[in-house]
């Protein structure tokens, strides 16, 4: 029966903080969905009347729709490549001690610290010099570079916290190392992979500056399309397109989770 108030305080503060967080995170999507349903000509909230006309506009806008598809392709490609390279690297750094390990770890984080405009110009010049200017590969490698910090960081932490006794038990049962990796290590790392994958996809999907520098005619991403669109036009089409992004994000997240089978792991 020691003092109860810190407990109560902790419980109440926890609930309050979480409510605040969820409300704050939900407001922008709700406002966008609201604004997209306007019957008027301006993007305002609250909307002026209700209609689906701006969705009609958005679907008819092939530039937006193509950019949407492009962003999805690029996001998934960057996510998979980043997870593959990042996991191999994080696993190597976790299991082996070698010269330059800390340097490699710090370097993997540093794309976040280099201002994106600078990285964009540097990469554009480099890629053009080696013949990969204006290519999908160039755009993809740029996105891999900016997603790697999240992937390496998240997987490094997960690996460090991994309970090695499961792996040892499996090894004692004479499971081959690659079997241990596939059947024990990777499943245990699934939450980390999930976080890292979500990070990578979302970062790539939302990036604008790097995509402006490395993108080219035929490979424009949705954020770039939106950014350029508002240079000369501003109407609720934007809200309609953003609502589609919201819906698609929900579908993708549910699908990733289903595939990853997160329920069974945690």
């Amino acid at each position: 029966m020691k003092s109860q108030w810190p407990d109560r305080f902790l419980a109440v503060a926890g609930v309050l903080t979480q409510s605040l967080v969820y409300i704050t995170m939900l407001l922008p999507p709700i406002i966008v969905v609201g604004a997209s349903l306007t019957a008027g000509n301006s993007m305002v909230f609250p909307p002026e009347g209700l209609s689906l006309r701006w969705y009609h506009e958005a679907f008819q806008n092939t530039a937006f729709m193509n950019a949407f598809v492009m962003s999805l392709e690029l996001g998934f490609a960057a996510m998979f490549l980043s997870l593959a390279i990042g996991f191999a690297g994080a696993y190597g750094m976790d299991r082996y001690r070698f010269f330059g390990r800390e340097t490699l770890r710090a370097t993997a984080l540093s794309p976040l610290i280099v201002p994106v405009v600078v990285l964009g110009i540097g990469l554009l010049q480099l890629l053009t010099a080696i013949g990969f200017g204006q290519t999908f590969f160039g755009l993809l490698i740029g996105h891999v570079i900016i997603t790697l910090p999240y992937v390496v960081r998240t997987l490094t932490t997960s690996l460090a916290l991994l309970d090695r006794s499961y792996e040892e038990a499996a090894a004692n049962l004479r499971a081959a190392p690659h079997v241990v990796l596939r059947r024990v290590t990777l499943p245990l790392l699934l939450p980390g992979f999930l976080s890292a994958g979500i990070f990578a996809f979302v970062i790539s999907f939302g990036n604008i500056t790097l995509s402006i520098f490395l993108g080219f005619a035929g490979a424009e991403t949705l954020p770039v399309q939106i950014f350029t669109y508002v240079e000369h036009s501003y109407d609720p089409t934007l809200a309609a397109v953003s609502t589609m992004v919201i819906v698609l994000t929900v579908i993708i997240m549910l699908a990733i989770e289903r595939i990853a089978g997160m329920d069974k792991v945690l």
Partner: protein
Amino acid sequence: MQTRRTFLVSTVAAGAVLAAPAIVRAKPFDNVTLTLNGFGGDFDRIMKETVADPLKAETGLDVTYAPGGSSAAVAKTIATPDNPPFDIVLCDSPSVPELIKADMIDPVTPDKVPNVANLLPGLPEFGQHGVPFMISSSVITYNTEETQTPIASYADLARPDLEGRVALFNLENTGGVLYLLAMAEANGGGIDNIDPAFAALERIKPNIVTLTSSTVSLIQLFEQREATAGALWNGRVFAMQNAGQPMAMVAPSEGIYSLMSYYNPIKGTKHPEAVATYLNKALSDEAIGAIANFFRYGPTTTVDLPKAVADTIITFGPEGRAKIKTLDWTKIAEKRSGWIERFNRTMA
């Protein structure tokens, strides 16, 4: 696909011998693709309808517009001088001296692009460099439901009744440079003596909600009524009015300060003839007129527009042209860095 085409060809060939030569005839730019940086949204749509589509039909030329904003396009071009990503760069007045300085653009001559002759007299700001296609002007705008007394000048933005209601560009946006020069020249200064402008700005400062580099940000502020008065591009004020917003458009009494948007043919393009053909088409009355008609920015040529349209464009025709203050963009480019630094220091 193959079988269907064979089928089509054989059936059509039988009956349409006359049509065949028209289909087969090679066009001059059949396998040529030009890349331009687009201006985005409705702008690219109009360019496609009035320039790219007709050119495709007439000459076989393909045109692609790569979005991303014109400042970034200029930066990308300068970053990769040996292999620039565009055949033609679209950008505004302040960027043209940079492209000239970096030796990245070719001059445009009437023998290659005959429609250059249609440009309003005395309009081009850089001799034969760059082809202007649109004039954007800085105008005063205010919400007529919230501000009863009309606002006639930039100086009026310092009025006490506008406290906390004014939104303006910062100097990152050229719109900011334009009102700065307007206030300098109205108060006895100019490019070489910018102090009067900063003094005038100091008087407006207490009224300022925010200063932003983003055009769309200003529009959001006005539409959500976070700010009720300020300076904006004439075309964007028209768009707000068109969407039913109660925003007034006033040509400031300090004068009309404008920038022009230019087509710049990039040096070393693989398809100089196609570029010239594009530029010529882009200066046609259809293209220039369609842009002016939709955005209500000033046309750069002697194109004729319906009176109802022309009346809403403050720089229309030779009389409108005469109202535009002439600016030395090369000199502005030299001074801008210092102005921005001073602006950042004093306005924060």
